[in-house]
């Protein structure tokens, strides 16, 4: 499967990546090569095969509903690039 330049720009936008023109061209070629390689899977008859999403099958792992000590607010916020009033600060997302 060959990707177009437009495909790469769209994927980059979905993934919130900002690419330069040279990067877009490079990824267009490389991602197309990798997807062509992955097309090898078309040789397999997968009709009726169940998907595997985990290596060792586990289901409904529960624990006792007991309150535990967690990180303090200072610890949680310690690595934030910007914080105020015990909160992470980001730019406004919605207009007034």
């Amino acid at each position: 499967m060959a990707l177009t330049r437009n495909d790469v720009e769209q994927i980059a936008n979905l993934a919130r990546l900002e690419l330069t023109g040279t990067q877009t061209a490079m990824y267009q070629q490389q991602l197309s090569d990798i997807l062509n390689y992955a097309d090898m899977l078309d040789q397999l008859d997968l009709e009726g095969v169940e998907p595997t999403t985990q290596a060792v099958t586990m289901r409904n792992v529960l624990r006792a509903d007991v309150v535990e000590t967690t990180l303090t607010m200072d610890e949680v916020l310690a690595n934030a690039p910007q914080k105020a009033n015990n909160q992470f600060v980001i730019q406004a997302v919605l207009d007034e």
Partner: protein
Amino acid sequence: MKLTDLTLTELRDALRRGETSSVEATQAVLDRIDAVDPAVKSYLTLTPENALADAAAADKRRAAGDDSPLLGVPVGVKDIICTKGVQTTAGSKILEGFVPPYDAFVVEQLKKTGAVILGKTNTDEFAMGSSTENSAYMTTSNPWDVTRVPGGSSGGSAAAVSAQLGYAALGSDTGGSVRQPASFCGVVGIRPTYGRMSRWGVIAYASSLDQVGCFGRTVADTTAIFQATAGHDPHDSTSLSVAVPDYEAALTGDIKGLRVGVPKEYFVEGLNPETEKAVRAAIAQLADLGAEIVEISLPHTEYALPVYYLIAPAEASANLARYEGTRFGPRVTGDDMISTVKKTRALFGEEVQRRIMLGTYALSAGYYDAYYGRALKARTLIKNDFKKAFEQVDVIASPTTPTTAFKIGDKTDDPLSMYLNDIFTVSLNLSASCGLSVPCGFDAAGLPIGLQLIGDTLQEATILNAAYAYESATQFYKQTPNIKL
């Protein structure tokens, strides 16, 4: 004999007999790091003050009668594993300056069992790579030839153990990132069954495949650190609530009657003839030791790599969505929130961007069924291959990698050729198996070759004992690299 020449188990015996102290051993390793690591570049962050303080505390504990399993033993930890109060970057600029507020479970276990942590070892960014060349900070060198890569992504840990800059180390293995560098650096590396180790505090790459692994110079050394760090952790609901057996006691060296499967699909074109020769000789050695050799088939082997390179990037694209400069890491401010997120995410390196995009595409509307959905189904076939094989045999033997260590810079322009390095290691991660790499000789250039031994679900004791029997008969670990400074 220098203190750094001792294996972990030899050091442990010497500490027990009071012939040396943890402070002496730790200082000896730190001195060797000062002398040798400028050439090897295995540690991203060193914590000598913490290490010496922990060593002194270990000596005090020992004087008071404590004999914890790793008491006073200096080790390294891959920089993808969180260490409280010590910068953890995952080899990425997007986590530069990140200081975790808590220890990973496996680090807690190291501390509990008395280990002394020397520092954080280099890794490909977010564990995505096979050479450490994707680290945003530096490329580690192979101690056997500093112009070559140590393998990856846990290349820093493998190189540190090989160069005697730590008696053991932790790494992580999503598609071969412990076994491949172990093979390239001539050390032992185990990737346990998914769920045997806790992933709590391990920075996520592909959550259904990630697993912590262990490095040592010998099988017994590797077993010691594995024994100390394995086990159930209530914080990781995918860690298995299964008792940890006494792996060290399982190292008897007796493999009479062990059924060893040799998968024909692993001895194909592209396998270096010298590697094939060494691995065939290793299999013959296992037979000499009493194992029964059985030719087997893992018919879907060739599909493992494309399956892996769809599933892992898909999971990565979701896991790495959290890096947008809000809760941790640097922020690059733009005109609005979206542009800030995009500018901040420009701190990701090329390989990480490539995998995020590949994963985003494989999961996107219209392509999900064709790529991610098909990969999940093909994963079932690969998992079933192993299930069937382990009805016939106890252990599967193969080369760990198709070639020995390649030159730094050789494969950086061609991602697909870099991915082909993982061809013998990825299948295991897609299944419920465990595996290790143990040195099985050298090529004409003097570069180490690794034998991969794969075991069924939670059969780590079986593969460790097989490796131990083989190692006892061959003793390749006694050869150490002559590092060109």
